[in-house]
């Protein structure tokens, strides 16, 4: 059978290499019984469409950010809460452990089988005005965020003007002051050239949203038990590979950013930011009381 894989990133990206490695391993270990092709660069549609196609069995596998996944699988919104993870290593630990398994169940209920959680780094603020050291610095700032109530609430609770905007518009908008800044991980900040126009990168690391290597449950259920084991192992191996590649890519991007004359500031104590997020959590839990246990599972972990 010929599998179809969906990927939003360009061909030379850690996620893309991870997916190719996954497909190769599956083909090899099934003795060529399962072949497939990864369609990179989002040629087969946007993420929400691809998730729908995966659930329908049209797409066999794909790597999806758990951010927009929240629209289809509300439980995954938990990892879109600001500062829900303390660090990237903690994210690995939790996603590979019991909290990640809880999300996996929610995904499977919607026909999505998670095989591993890829690293998409930590998102931090960048802008063209000043370094951000405290939540007060965000006050009055126009910040582009992704389309999600949580991210809008995150900016608003710091007194900023949250501006959902198409990603392609951001560069020009920062350049001309339509928005003051945006937030993203180092590779995106670098590869989009946003660092050329937004010279302050403040490592708030407020969002650590993993990406998920997923399979269609329809496809997965059609496999023999042996094949399912092969797929699971390949998923795990590709996750390890992607995480390693991501680390390298992130370091390379940070070097380009620094060489580009960006003022990068670390934020040693993030507690002021975390406190500023209390209204976001309160509002979220008030609207989704059934998520309380799940949120605590993540938030209260060491």
């Amino acid at each position, binding site marked *: 059978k010929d599998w179809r894989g969906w990927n939003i990133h360009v061909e030379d990206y850690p996620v893309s290499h991870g997916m190719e490695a996954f497909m190769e391993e599956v083909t090899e270990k099934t003795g060529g019984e399962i072949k497939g092709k990864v369609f990179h660069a989002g040629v087969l549609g946007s993420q929400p469409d691809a998730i729908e196609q995966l*659930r329908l069995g049209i797409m066999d596998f794909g790597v999806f950010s758990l951010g927009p996944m929240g*629209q289809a699988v509300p439980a995954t919104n938990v990892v879109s809460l600001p500062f829900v993870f303390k660090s990237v290593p903690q994210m690995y630990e939790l996603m590979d452990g019991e909290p990640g398994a809880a999300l996996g169940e929610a995904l499977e209920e919607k026909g999505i089988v998670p095989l591993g959680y890829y690293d998409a780094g930590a998102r931090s603020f960048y802008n063209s005005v000043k370094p951000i050291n405290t939540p007060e610095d965000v006050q009055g700032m126009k910040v582009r965020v992704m389309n999600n*109530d949580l991210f809008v609430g995150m900016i608003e609770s710091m007194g900023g003007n949250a501006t959902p905007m198409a990603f392609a518009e951001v560069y020009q908008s920062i350049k001309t002051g339509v928005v003051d800044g945006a937030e993203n991980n180092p590779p995106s900040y670098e590869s989009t050239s946003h660092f050329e126009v937004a010279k302050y990168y403040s490592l708030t690391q407020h969002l650590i949203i993993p990406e998920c290597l997923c399979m269609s449950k329809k496809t997965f259920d059609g496999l023999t038990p042996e094949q399912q084991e092969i797929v699971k192992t390949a998923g795990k191996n590709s996750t390890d590979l992607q995480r390693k590649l991501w680390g390298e890519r992130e370091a390379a991007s940070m070097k380009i950013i620094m060489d580009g004359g960006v003022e990068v500031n670390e934020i040693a104590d993030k507690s002021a930011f975390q406190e500023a997020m209390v209204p976001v959590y309160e509002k979220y839990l008030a609207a989704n009381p059934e998520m309380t246990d799940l949120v605590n599972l993540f938030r209260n972990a060491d």
Partner: protein
Amino acid sequence: MEHAPLWMKHTERALDGLSFLCMLAASIAIVVLIATFGWLVFGRYVLNVTPTWVEQLALLLICYVTYLGAAVGIHENTHLGVTLFRDMMGWRVSNFLKLVIDIVLAGFGLIMLVASIELVKFGWSTMLPMLNIPESFRSLSAAMCGGLVFLFAGLRAVFRIACLLRGIPYHEKGLF
């Protein structure tokens, strides 16, 4: 002078009414679209508070403008098409092809209706960002379009056959 049967005239009038309602709804949608975007520009630049729902509402409204307008376009024969080859064929073949087209379009409309209803059901638990209403409201516009195309093209095919059987010409609407 030959006359079209009464039932045909009544049905045509009903279809005109339906088409008018679609156009009315699409017109209101496009006016709301423009007005809310004016509000967005005002909010972002003057009030420094961006109304975050405008974009997503606009993306929803555009679907209704498109699909309702497209259905009206089927009724009024205003879609871009290549009629050159058909027109070269002489009126017999040309009339036959027009009937075939209407039947094909009606079939497509029916499939569009049924498949889009599936899509509506499937999207029920997926929420549109910022609006927090089911995604189904988006695909609903496609379902409506399918149903309308089925009615408009299907009944026109019926009219064509009826006129053919009575040996009278069928007068259709058209831009040119």
